[in-house]
């Protein structure tokens, strides 16, 4: 049995949607809004709220530009976001008995 340390949980990443966004961007490097929304299977509004929260926390950055006269927001994971994801995974792994992580 392992100890469950609530203080060690990153509250921002504890949301499943935000965790999915950060994990998706960790793999993609950069992605536009619609790709993120489709990947995490949510609505425009929900994705927008969670991306704003991640932006405010400094885990993602957004670059707004025009492509074919349409506004396009491209999101990237920051070093802080990547570090937070690594720490979150490390914390989850610490909850498992050693050698039984998969």
């Amino acid at each position: 049995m392992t100890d469950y340390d609530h203080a060690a949980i990153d509250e921002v990443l504890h949301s499943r949607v935000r965790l999915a966004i950060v994990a998706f961007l960790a793999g993609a490097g950069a992605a536009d809004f619609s790709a993120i929304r489709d990947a995490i299977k949510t609505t425009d509004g929900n994705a927008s709220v969670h991306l704003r929260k991640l932006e405010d926390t400094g885990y993602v950055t957004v670059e707004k530009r025009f492509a074919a006269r349409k506004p396009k927001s491209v999101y990237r994971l920051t070093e802080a976001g990547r570090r937070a994801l690594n720490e979150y995974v490390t914390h989850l792994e610490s909850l498992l008995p050693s050698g039984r992580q998969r």
Partner: protein
Amino acid sequence: MIEDRAREDIAFIRETIEAGRTYATSLGSDMVVWGVAVAIGHLTTYLRVGGGLSPGWIWAACIGLPWLYSLRRYWRRFLRNRQPTHPGPMAKAQQMLWLGFGIFLTTLAIAASWTGEMRLGWFDAVAAGALGSTVFATAWLASLPWLRWVAVGWWGGELLVYGLRNEAEMQLVSAAMMLLLLALPGLVLVTRRMPRRSA
């Protein structure tokens, strides 16, 4: 219970990172593999004058192997009994566009080889024009405006290849187009979205 939840979360994170990687590199890596393979086919055909391996076998390898690569996500799905990792509608549209293009060109190549029409030299011009159209549609679907100029390059190449259809140098021009207008843009797509370091 906590262990189960942690295990589920870790699996979820790994799958989502994999989905991100698929989004970032799938189209680009396919373009690189196909561009290089078909360029090798053209170059080998050009250099083969005077004997060697039959062009039929060369082209079977240069088309068959990229097909195996492009269908990898379906192999994975079949072997692991899992759903595809990136089901977004735009990504799906791109995948189906390129799949349809590949089926069209492969069946036309088989028919043209079977009937001996391939020797007349029009096939590469048709392939270049169709590639131009597919790249053009991809540019819009993927919001990659610069890719439209690659499509224009393919349409220009279509005219050039058609003009050279009776010359051996047509093979060299086609190989160069495959490298410059397919493999190179694919490489750009792979590198511009590649994460610097995985989580």
